[in-house]
């Protein structure tokens, strides 16, 4: 299961909409071992393509180093499909290289509605998982006492 704040979910959807019809991509970083996405890092799609994405290699080095220094890891790797469903393609599966990450796919094919789904991709096997909207990550230090920021329909995110 992926637990993600509604604010981070909205950032991903906004990025995907902004880059439509090209594919948008990026990372949500979180503390190593926490499985908790906290930091939104939109990445440049070096391919600038409606059917393919690839992180820019120099930007990736910079972001990966920064995560290392902050003792973070890529908790979520997201990208959009702009004309097909939010499900990993064969290409997505072939290149998936972070077995510990949640692979989030967003589809912007319908103008009014954005599909948002999450998967594990390990050794070529895709497993869809539930997406649960939790409180905003910045409020996460006080379990059970989130600040009054809009957390959306927080369907009982489990306390740490």
């Amino acid at each position, binding site marked *: 299961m992926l637990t993600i704040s509604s604010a981070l979910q909205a950032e991903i959807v906004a990025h995907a909409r902004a880059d439509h019809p090209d594919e948008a991509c990026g990372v949500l970083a979180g503390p190593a071992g926490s499985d908790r996405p906290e930091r939104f890092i939109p*990445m440049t799609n070096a391919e600038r393509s409606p059917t393919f994405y*690839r*992180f820019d290699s120099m930007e990736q080095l910079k972001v990966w180093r920064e995560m290392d220094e902050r003792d973070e890891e890529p908790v979520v790797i997201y990208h959009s499909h702009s004309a097909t469903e939010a499900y990993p393609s064969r290409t997505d599966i072939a290149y998936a290289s972070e077995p510990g990450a949640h692979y989030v796919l967003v589809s912007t094919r319908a103008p009014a509605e954005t599909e948002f789904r999450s998967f594990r991709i390990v050794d070529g096997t895709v497993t869809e998982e539930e997406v649960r909207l939790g409180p905003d990550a910045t409020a996460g230090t006080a379990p059970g006492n989130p600040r009054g920021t809009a957390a959306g329909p927080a369907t009982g995110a489990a306390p740490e």
Partner: protein
Amino acid sequence: MSIEVRIPTILRSYTGGAKAVEGSGDTLAGLLSDLESRHGGLRERLVDDGGLRRFVNVYLNDEDVRFLGGLDAPVRDGDTVTVLPAVAGGAS
């Protein structure tokens, strides 16, 4: 022998779990051959018949080695080589 090579999670099965290993060589190709003698199988994950694999990024210090000559890029003691799998995919 003191070129540090930083290994991504997905390839640490070749390094006994180590995040970084050390090696030596005059070029990236030489360094990878040296590593292969202690971490068998690693080289093949980075290189194929055509050179560096397309969906692996290898950096020498702060530069993508593709801009430095690829496998022929010169390396020396004190350098840091970083390996990162490319993050890629798409609907096609």
